[in-house]
């Protein structure tokens, strides 16, 4: 069963118990709830009356259970009526727009203008108290809530492609509304239903308390509270029981509806990973690896392994990843989604989500291991010695501040004693440097006033503001058009040449790698499978995956060839070579043991036990 359904049992059982008790009240052999016995007035618990007697000597337990009948009947009836009509009105208003929308939504606004209790009081005073009147009043009161929720959900649902797809299939409006839109807006409506029932129970009790609801001597929780109030000094427990019943019912209702909504959504099948406190306090890191023999590298990552705790057990989206990047060099990390390239970058920056942690390896920047630095020191490095540019500049820029202020802020965060005016003029210089025309005026613009390409330039200006030694760019051009991408690639290459910073460029596009990078790291399923200089790796790929990836890109005259199968999930990484299942050269030996990363010439490594053999075969085939 899905985990969502397990959470359903407790609240569902509780609500079922309450409803059953109310329904079965006549069969429980309870004393008559309206039979008075003045001799036993306000008596405490006694045989036959476990909760005692009230101010007229009536049995409290019996009145409580019979009272649930009227309270719940009124609440469920009114919420159901409101839900039915509200959903229909909301669906029609949201789908057909125009006049229907106006009538459905605006008429509800009028109802909303009346204070709810006042409206209820008015109607009850006019029509006289009683359960029927109550149901009518409460349905009208809760109607606008349902209309508005449904209307808003329909508006957002109708913009989805899957609704457009059913429209393209020629479905009628009725079919679309019932089969496609309704199931997708059902979650919020259910929540609204739980809120309406809970608040109807309270309002019913309140009105009965005021003597405007259920008519005495019929039992109701509100009437019980009203009665107990008068004798509060003599028998305080009498007040407790109906209040307890009210609270419990409302709590159970709300829990049930939350659980229902989760269970009805097939997408919430996997629960969010829970964060283990232990992992936060004691990151289980091995002692730092010694700094290797390449001291001139700006960043050196060795044996990096990242673990994420999930409900299905820990997974390792990045395993044993090593690479180095030197000053003035561009290193590309390329791989498909799920290859672990972004996780690698975020762990170097110390920006991993809480559930993930590095469990092995080291990342050396200027003699310091980034994986073991305390957060305050990391913060000093981020935006200082190392900076990052993200894929989506809109969500990385603060929408409520001018871009000039944001760049100035980045400068002042790392340099004490810089005045706001100095930082601002430096920000303008930086904007000019990244190719923004009219930088004085543009510095005063907000992010939403700029185009995607311009926002990415601002992000780059911010990243290079403190002359970083290392710039990590995570898919910086993926969201941009090709002509704008070409501009940004040129800009990054130019900045790197001028400042001598090391650039790590993360991308899924092999074409971009070929255009910008000196060296390339090819990742597959969390591991490095090949590494070397770009002309060598692209000219003569050694790993079958690199070769297949290059063949899959439409470039030149050959038709692109897909790679059969899919990338394995981190939960199900095979023991041996992770590419074996999709590899045309796989042998039983490949699946037996994990292949090691082998050296293959100057600055070149490959993770394949058959690379030399395959290379020889290829050479033979050509000859």
């Amino acid at each position, binding site marked *: 069963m899905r985990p969502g359904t397990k959470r359903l049992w407790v609240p569902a059982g509780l609500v079922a118990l309450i409803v059953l008790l109310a329904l079965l009240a006549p069969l429980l052999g309870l004393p008559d709830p309206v039979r008075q016995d003045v001799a036993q007035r306000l008596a405490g618990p006694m045989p036959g009356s476990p909760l005692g007697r009230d101010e007229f000597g009536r049995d409290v337990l019996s009145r409580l259970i019979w009272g649930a009948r009227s309270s719940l009947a009124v609440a469920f009836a009114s919420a159901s009526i409101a839900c039915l009509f509200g959903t229909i009105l909301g669906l029609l208003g949201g789908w057909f727009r125009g006049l229907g929308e106006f009538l459905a939504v605006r008429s509800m606004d009028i109802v909303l203008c009346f204070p709810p209790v006042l409206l209820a009081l008015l109607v009850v005073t006019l029509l006289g108290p009683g359960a029927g009147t109550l149901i009518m009043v409460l349905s009208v009161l809760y109607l606008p809530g349902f209309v508005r929720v449904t209307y808003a959900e329909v508006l957002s649902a109708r913009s989805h492609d899957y609704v457009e797809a059913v429209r393209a299939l*020629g479905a009628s409006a009725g079919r679309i509304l019932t089969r496609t839109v309704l199931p997708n807006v059902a979650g919020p409506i259910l929540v609204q239903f739980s809120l309406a029932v809970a608040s109807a129970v309270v309002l019913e009790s309140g009105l009965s308390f005021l003597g405007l609801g259920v008519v005495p001597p019929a039992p109701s929780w509100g009437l019980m509270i009203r009665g107990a109030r008068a004798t509060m000094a003599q028998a305080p427990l009498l007040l407790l029981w109906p209040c307890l019943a009210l609270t419990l019912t409302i709590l159970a209702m709300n829990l049930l509806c939350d659980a229902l909504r989760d269970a009805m959504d097939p997408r919430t099948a996997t629960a969010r990973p829970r964060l283990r406190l232990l992992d936060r306090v004691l990151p289980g890191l091995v002692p730092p690896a010694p700094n290797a023999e390449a001291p001139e590298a700006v960043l050196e990552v060795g044996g990096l392994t990242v673990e994420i705790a999930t409900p299905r057990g820990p997974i390792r989206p990045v395993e044993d990843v090593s690479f180095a990047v030197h000053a003035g060099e561009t290193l590309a990390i390329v791989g498909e*989604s799920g290859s672990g390239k972004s996780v690698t970058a975020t762990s170097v920056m110390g920006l991993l989500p809480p559930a993930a942690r590095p469990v092995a390896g080291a990342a050396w920047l200027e003699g310091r291991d980034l994986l073991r630095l305390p957060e305050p020191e990391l913060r000093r490095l981020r935006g200082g010695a190392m900076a990052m540019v993200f894929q989506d500049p809109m969500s990385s820029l603060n929408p409520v501040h001018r871009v000039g202020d944001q760049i100035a802020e980045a400068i002042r965060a790392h340099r004490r004693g810089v005045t706001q005016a100095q930082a601002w003029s430096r920000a303008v210089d930086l904007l000019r440097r990244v190719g923004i025309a009219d930088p004085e005026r543009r510095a005063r613009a907000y992010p939403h006033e700029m185009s995607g390409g311009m926002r990415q330039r601002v992000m780059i200006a911010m990243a290079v503001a403190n002359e970083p030694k290392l710039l990590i760019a995570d898919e910086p051009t993926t969201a941009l058009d090709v002509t704008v991408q070409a501009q940004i690639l040129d800009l990054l290459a130019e900045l790197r040449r001028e400042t001598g910073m090391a650039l790590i460029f993360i991308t899924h596009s092999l074409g971009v790698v070929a255009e910008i990078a000196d060296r390339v790291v090819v990742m597959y399923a969390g591991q490095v499978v090949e590494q070397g200089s770009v002309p060598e790796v692209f000219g003569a790929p050694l790993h079958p995956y690199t070769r297949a990836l290059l063949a899959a890109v*439409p470039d030149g005259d050959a038709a692109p*060839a897909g790679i059969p199968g*899919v990338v394995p999930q981190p939960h199900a990484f095979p023991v041996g070579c992770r590419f074996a299942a999709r590899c045309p050269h796989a042998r039983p030996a490949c699946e037996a043991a994990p292949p090691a990363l082998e050296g293959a010439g100057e600055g070149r490594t490959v993770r394949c036990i058959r690379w030399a053999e395959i290379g020889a075969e290829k050479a033979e085939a050509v000859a």
Partner: protein
Amino acid sequence: MSAAAPPLVEATGLSKIFAAHGVFRRGRPVQAVRRVDVSVARGEALGVVGESGSGKSTLGRLLLGLQPATEGVIRFDGQPLDATMPKAEWRRLRRRMQIVFQDPFGSLDPRRRIGAQIADGLAIHDLVPAAERAGRVEELLRQVGLDPAHAQRFPHEFSGGQRQRIGIARALATEPEFLVADEPVSALDVSIQAQVVALMDDLRRRLGLALLFISHDLPVVRHLCDRVVVMYLGRIMEEGSVETVFRAPAHPYTRALLSATPRIDPTRRAKRILLQGDPPSPSNPPSGCAFRTRCAHATAACAEVVPELRPLGGERQVACIRAEEIA
């Protein structure tokens, strides 16, 4: 493509203007598509390329009648598409044209099993008796390379590439003659992209589909399509056979677009023509030629009159007054 056969889909003078929203209608109207003539023959694959804001997606939706055109006439198999047509008539036409979307996550209903979603088209048009629908769904799944046993699964249980196959199966269920594919592989990884492109190529040849393939990825269009239309700010800049347009682009914008595409093979890399700035907003397009603000060859004459799409030898048309001069 014989010129004699009448096209399956033909649009003339097609325009789409999105009115400004808000109480005071302050914003300018967005001119998404402006006086476009386009046609797709039976069995032909027409590529539509352009950057964001070029109007290529709107064009696809207009041709399917999913959005009403502001101006112009669309004919499907000789019959004009008209919003006032009887509903039954529309439904009959709907069956014959379908769409595949870009986003493999948003295009499937997350709450329904994929088998039921594929069967929707069969049920709506009553193509297959209810008892035989499951069998037809299995057949469709097999056709797009999926395990027929997976019909009872929910969309979230599939990878991006598999979902895109499901979307294609849903579109093929009604046995359409015309398929609009709106960036169907843009959200996929390269290795998966090539699989889906190969599938679409195979299906369209086997089923004789007329295909309108919308993409910003020029190399993919080159491999899949017979003819290509290059759009910029809602207008067609160049049109012709894929061979001609890609080998010898005539419009300065086509050239810039081709040269900006990153290439793996360094020997194929053309001299980069770096365009300045961003494309202008479709709500405030420049006068005259839409591309002139970013064009290295623009003259004063370019600002004066909107260049007409004119034939330029062979099966090619171009909307540039200086096409011959700058060739």
